């Protein structure tokens, strides 16, 4: 059974979905690191379900990013680990997204935000990923 996987650095997403979903919570990760971790998973055959740079908030603005993925069958249990089939569409999207994110970050890194605004970012990120989940 293909299982859903959420990769996120947003504790609001983790708290909300950790019971009923497989959540990879990268607490200290930056926006870019979440994308790079997602890429490594895609290289191992995991498929993207949500667009990695969804939302108009730019990577040098919001520190939070949540991405929805789908693990292929037998993922992780090493005995009958099949050679994972690379999902070309997922690869293209995640590589494009990383390249775009690096270019935007080169212009300006993420400023230090007052906590109120950080909460708004978390809420928006949560809403975007929730749209993808249900």
């Amino acid at each position, binding site marked *: 059974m293909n299982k859903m996987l959420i990769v996120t650095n947003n504790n609001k997403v983790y708290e909300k979905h950790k019971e009923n979903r497989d959540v990879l919570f990268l607490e200290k990760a930056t926006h870019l690191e979440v994308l790079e971790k997602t890429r490594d998973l895609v290289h191992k055959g995991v498929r*993207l*379900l*949500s*667009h990695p*740079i*969804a*939302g*108009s*908030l*730019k990577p040098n*603005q*919001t520190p939070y990013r949540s991405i*929805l993925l789908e693990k292929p069958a037998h993922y992780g249990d090493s005995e009958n680990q099949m050679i994972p089939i690379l999902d070309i*569409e997922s690869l293209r*999207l995640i590589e*494009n*997204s990383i*390249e*775009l994110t690096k*270019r935007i970050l080169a*212009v*300006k890194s993420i*400023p230090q*935000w*007052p906590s*109120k*605004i950080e909460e*708004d*970012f978390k*809420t*928006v990120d949560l*809403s*975007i*990923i*929730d*749209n*993808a989940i249900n």
Partner: protein
Amino acid sequence: MKLELGKIKIKDVQFGDVTKVEGNVLYVNAKEIETLVLEDERLISAKVELAKPGESVRIAPVKDVIEPRVKVSGNGGIFPGVISKVQEVGNGRTHALVGANVITCGKIVGFQEGIIDMSGPAAKYCPFCSTYNVCIVIEPAEGLDTHDYEAAGRLAGLKAAARIGEAGRNITPDEVMSYETKPLQEQIKQYPNLPKVGYIHMLQSQGLLHDTYYYGVDAKVMLPTVMYPTEMMDGAIVSGNCVAPCDKVTTFHHLNNPVVEELYKRHGKDLNFVGVILTNENVFLADKERSSDMVAKLAEYMGLDGVLITEEGYGNPDTDLMMNCKKVSQKGIKVVLITDEFPGRDGKSQSLADAVDEADALVSCGNGNVIINFPPMDRVIGTLDYVETMIGGYEGSLKPDGSIEAELQIIIASTIANGYNCLAARGY
């Protein structure tokens, strides 16, 4: 479906004790508008200020820009499903106060942004520097959930614009334009040997602060559908998006869609404008697959020869734009895309976040990363607290003297991807 649009040319805006239009001057009773807006207890303050072309005035952060309109005859009312009740619009007669706009601004969320300058170098990039603007500076109540903030801000502008629009109900318009699109079969018969053209209109629908509403329905939960172009002119589509300033499609732009305008201009001459296919730009990849399949099916089902496609936003929506382009082209239908570009400040990087071979005909609405400097303005409507943290702004954008150095992205609708402006980019 036939609509007569009566254009009442507004040449000035003044405060007055009665909201009315007299001799092409719009008078606004500030108190009345503020009380109307404050009926929504989610807002604790609302202040009306006027901004006229050429004045040294800066408006920020901008939530939406709405042209005041009123339905004089035909069924339904302006902004069906949001302000008026749900009823099909787009026929009969509507009056518009052309040259006047309602602009909602003020803090809703920290990063929501967008600037309008009424004069100076930044003015030429924004259509609203040359309109008479009734600005409503709103302040949401403390501790509200972000969804409530956004809804309160959105409704405030639409309510005010509908109320001010009423002032044009009994005024004889300076000019009346009539637009007609017949049901598909009749429309094809009317001009049998002209190429059948459709407009694929993609609505921003990625989530909170990124949404658009069609007859009150959030585009995110909508399946692609067909609509008459004139429905847009009565506000069937309203904007709920207030994040990316430069490619924000304001409610003004939904009412005055440039592609619809241009297609009607040539309708019956060298093309047959048969209708609009409305679709969305969701985050879930399966939604993108489903929506683009349906868009291509509708285009084929309508027997179109050619389509124009426009998107709102950048990055994620580029994927939908390219999927629509590929699938419609593969049905043998000719496709032209209109979009803006983000090739970096030096203009050397990839302009689009996605690309397909079929995208061989594209119109550019300009590079949003270009750095521009604009001087301080004497008066600020709203607040400049967040300039440096806006998209396009950065550390040091807001200079001590109040001048701003930022990417063009920070100016509302400066590179709007539906072809409203004349700004473009070319390869050097």
